[in-house]
């Protein structure tokens, strides 16, 4: 028997022991066996603990400690054998004072022998005083939800699958100004990180977690996934037109990446799904820049003239993320998708065709985030509906001005669509550009309608409205 007569019992432990009718001598014997006071307190606090049961447990531990044989109850033995736990490991767990039914539950819950071995070794070291002397371990009592064991599904282990129990609570307002991840427990005194977006309505999209996984899964590599060797020399005017389009797309990609990069640090950590998705969007923009620069410089051509840049300013000057998102992820992305369709349609080889079709996948995710965020915003901020019109009024007007000023891009598109610079080719290119403009404006409006904003059709800027009117009406106008 361990000599515990000299050990002092902490006051709070003594109080619980008294309330439960457990003799203090029994508590001292437990402390002498090396059980931490907090652990004894936790055990005594369990329902159904009696002095008789405690005496039986302590006596058994003292017997084992004195070299007595450890007997594994038959029921536990069967569970251990079924899950291929070595008997020696089970005995070490019992020697540490773990109740047989507790050990059985841990085994059945899926704890692997190697995981258990590490934990048991730590506990044994602590029992011997090796760890207890150097480690505080009070942090292990953090009141977060514990025992989470998410299993992978047919998509693997996804971010959305981690939203279980209290970890699935995504609050409307995130109260913490630090980098603490959602579900962790805050400590006082941590300096704020300077975020400005703490309202879920200001950034949330229900599909953000899935879009993150999609972006990771469907990533592609311009360096090796594009069959660059399929390119052959093109007529000079075609190569120059493509170079001009690539220059424009490079600018748009860089700008979009800057915008996302600027807003990410504003978003608080409570909404990590959005931050994760937008980090992939920033990567997508980098890849778009990369692939169009590579296309411009890999077939005897090069880059062209820079864009006037008015529209760039209209996006980057946004003062709220929802404004930036509606303009960048719905309006501008719809236009980019239209340009990619021009590229896919006029592709001269497999490399160009694949570049634009792979790019569509990336832009498709940007559109999907934009639509779902606007839908969520409108459902939570009904009073701010008119604000969205104002964002788009400004963006569409500046876009129309930019489109008028950006003669190089317009002419490049006409040449690509018409196939050259002869009169009949130019006439064909102009007609086709009109067709493509109708396509992207129609898709833009259908996305806004899907976001719960169908009335935008009536307020569309005149320069865009002409694309959704019947040809006769447009001609009359």
């Amino acid at each position: 028997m361990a000599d515990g007569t000299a050990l002092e019992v902490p006051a709070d432990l003594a109080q619980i022991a008294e309330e439960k009718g457990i003799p203090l001598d029994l508590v001292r014997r437990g402390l002498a066996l090396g059980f931490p006071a907090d652990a004894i307190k936790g055990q005594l606090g369990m329902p159904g603990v009696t002095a008789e049961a405690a005496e039986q447990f302590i006596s058994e531990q003292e017997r084992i400690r004195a070299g007595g044989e450890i007997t594994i109850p038959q029921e536990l033995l069967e569970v251990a054998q079924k899950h291929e736990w070595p008997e020696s490991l089970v005995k070490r767990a019992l020697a540490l004072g773990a109740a047989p039914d507790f050990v059985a539950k841990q085994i059945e819950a899926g704890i692997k022998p190697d995981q258990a071995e590490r934990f048991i070794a730590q506990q044994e070291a602590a029992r011997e005083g090796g760890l207890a002397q150097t480690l505080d371990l009070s942090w292990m009592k953090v009141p977060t939800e514990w025992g989470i064991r998410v299993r992978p599904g047919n998509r693997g282990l996804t971010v959305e699958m981690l939203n279980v129990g209290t970890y699935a609570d995504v609050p409307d307002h995130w109260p913490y100004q630090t980098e603490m991840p959602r579900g962790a427990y805050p400590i006082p005194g941590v300096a704020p990180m300077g975020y400005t977006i703490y309202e879920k309505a200001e950034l949330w999209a229900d599909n953000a977690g899935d879009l993150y996984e999609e972006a990771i899964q469907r990533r592609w590599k311009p360096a090796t996934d594009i069959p660059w060797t399929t390119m052959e020399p093109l007529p000079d005017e075609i190569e120059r037109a493509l170079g001009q389009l690539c220059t424009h797309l490079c600018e748009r990609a860089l700008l979009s990446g800057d915008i996302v990069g600027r807003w990410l640090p504003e978003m608080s950590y409570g909404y990590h799904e959005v931050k994760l998705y937008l980090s992939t969007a920033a990567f997508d923009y980098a890849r778009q820049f990369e692939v169009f620069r590579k296309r411009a410089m890999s077939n005897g051509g090069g880059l062209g003239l820079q864009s006037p840049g008015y529209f760039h300013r209209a996006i980057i000057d946004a003062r709220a993320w929802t404004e930036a998102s509606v303009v960048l992820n719905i309006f501008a992305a719809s236009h980019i998708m239209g340009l990619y369709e021009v590229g896919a349609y006029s592709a001269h080889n497999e490399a160009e065709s694949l570049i634009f079709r792979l790019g569509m996948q990336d832009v498709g995710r940007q559109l999907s985030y934009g639509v779902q965020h606007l839908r969520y915003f409108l459902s939570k901020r009904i009073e701010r509906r008119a604000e969205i019109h104002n964002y788009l009024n400004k963006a569409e007007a500046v876009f129309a001005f930019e489109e008028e000023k950006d003669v190089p891009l317009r002419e490049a598109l006409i040449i690509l669509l018409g196939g050259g610079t002869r009169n009949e080719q130019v006439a064909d290119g102009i007609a086709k550009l009109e067709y493509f403009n109708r396509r992207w404006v129609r898709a833009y409006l259908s996305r806004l309608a899907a976001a719960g904003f169908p009335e935008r059709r009536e307020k569309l800027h005149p320069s865009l409205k002409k694309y959704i009117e019947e040809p006769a009406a447009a001609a009359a106008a």
Partner: protein
Amino acid sequence: MTQEVKTKATFPSVEWFNAIRQIVNDDPGYKHIGTCDATVGIKIPDLQKYYLLTFEAFEVSDVREATETEAENADFWLELPYVKWKEMIENIKANGKADLHHTLNTIDIEEPDDLARSHDGYRRDAFYRFNQTFQYFFDASARIDTTFQ
């Protein structure tokens, strides 16, 4: 893409779509593209034939004949007259995969009412988001011996 032809099937039929489904589900190259979650309707209006394809995670989980309404309730549906479906499939067979003028995207652009249609602008964008998966699926028809009605 290999040209190993083992299966014969008639287009359009559930057997034809299932033959392709079997090929892509056994193909590591298909899984390499990444996950795809979408329901896709197939409409061949002049034959009044409608199908529903379910893409789930790394596989095509279901193929079945459907009503026109069911096809239209998918995320989006692909609609072409029979002769154009035939042209696309024959082009894929001849080239081992769609040439530049017969990809789903180029056909979509050239069709005045689109190849990919949806009642919902958000769900329709699945056509863009997963276009390489859908293209891989139809390109795999080069690996079967298609007969036409």
